[in-house]
């Protein structure tokens, strides 16, 4: 959703936020988490883990909404998300149609 201006009640809006943990050497590079993260928080690394696979890097940590999808789609139990403090949406991101606080 995009807005034509920053909503006035933005400071009262709270978005869930997650703390992403990646067990790098357990990843087999399938890319499921990267492909299906609804907020495009993750991207495949260019370097390799100990077993020779690319693994996910967190590229937009602040946008994670703690939906847990990456955790339950991962066939290797190599990524999970713990609850972090909810955040206020970032006004600039809201105007761009994105969502979460820069941080």
């Amino acid at each position, binding site marked *: 959703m995009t807005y034509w201006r920053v909503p006035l009640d933005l400071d009262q809006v709270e978005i869930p936020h997650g703390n992403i*943990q990646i*067990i*790098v*050497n*357990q990843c*087999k*590079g*399938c*890319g*499921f988490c990267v*492909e*299906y993260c609804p907020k495009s928080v993750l991207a495949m690394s260019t370097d390799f883990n100990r*077993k020779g*696979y690319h693994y996910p890097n967190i590229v937009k940590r602040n946008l994670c909404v703690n939906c847990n*999808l990456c*955790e*339950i*789609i*991962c*066939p*290797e*139990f*190599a990524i*999970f998300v*713990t609850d972090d403090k909810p955040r206020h949406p970032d006004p600039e991101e809201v105007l761009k149609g994105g969502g979460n606080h820069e941080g």
Partner: protein
Amino acid sequence: MSKTTTGFTNKLEIPTPREKLHHPMDRYLRTERFPHIWCATCGIGTILTAFISGLEKSGLEQEKVAVVSGIGCSGRAAGYLRLDSFHTTHGRAIPFATGLSLGNPELKVVVISGDGDLVAIGGNHLIHAARRNIDLTIICINNFNYAMTGGQAGPTTPIEANASTAPYGCYEFPFNLPFLAESSGAVYVARWTALHIRRLAKSITEALLKPGFSFIEVICPCSTLYARRNRLGTGLDLMKFYHDNALIKHGADTREIDIRYQDQIVVGKFVDKDKPTFLQKRDKFLREKLGEKFIPYKGPQPI
């Protein structure tokens, strides 16, 4: 660590912590056996995650759930679960599970196994356990081939699909598993793909809480054999294919949902009905016939 006379150490090695990070599902996993054997981009691990998440939501106690598998890549599932889990012989997961369930009716017994294991060599057990409405939950991981032994065609391989025993494409009519399960007597029947992870987990919860024979088919990418032989790309490409070609149709007529090669896959919950389980029916029937003389089996008793 002391050595025994045979030279083996008699204390189990403490497994190395996985980079000191503890996955929230670790308490359900035999993490000492990780990483698991499944290939990169295989979907079986994702289905295991859905099972754990469905089990958690069911609220069943970990000690009251047993998981049985047969042989195959899918059949490895039981061995990775920190539950009472059993890796049985090929095709015999259901008879083993039937004994377990009848011997200890308090247990919720789950079978997680492959299409070949459950429907080819084990097909007879499947239909008779469904007919008798044994209290079991079956999760049938359908990757359209016998993956573990090299990608042979099996009873679910779609017509046209290439397999190592069907180099020009398979020409046999495949089974439509939800129809088979329903017509054999299952009280709960659903089909999902490895991509429908939340819906699959929800179905698993429902099936676990349903008394009687529940059957969930899960369409699963086999990247190394089925996808490679058919040039379908990786497991991720198959997940994208499921995304574009799966149609959710709860309550669909199971006669009309057979799977054709690389065609639409109808998913959803198709059957959810109530019927007395084998034990309920037996106890009621025999009580009527025998009256006072009938003493129902009460499961294992403390000695």
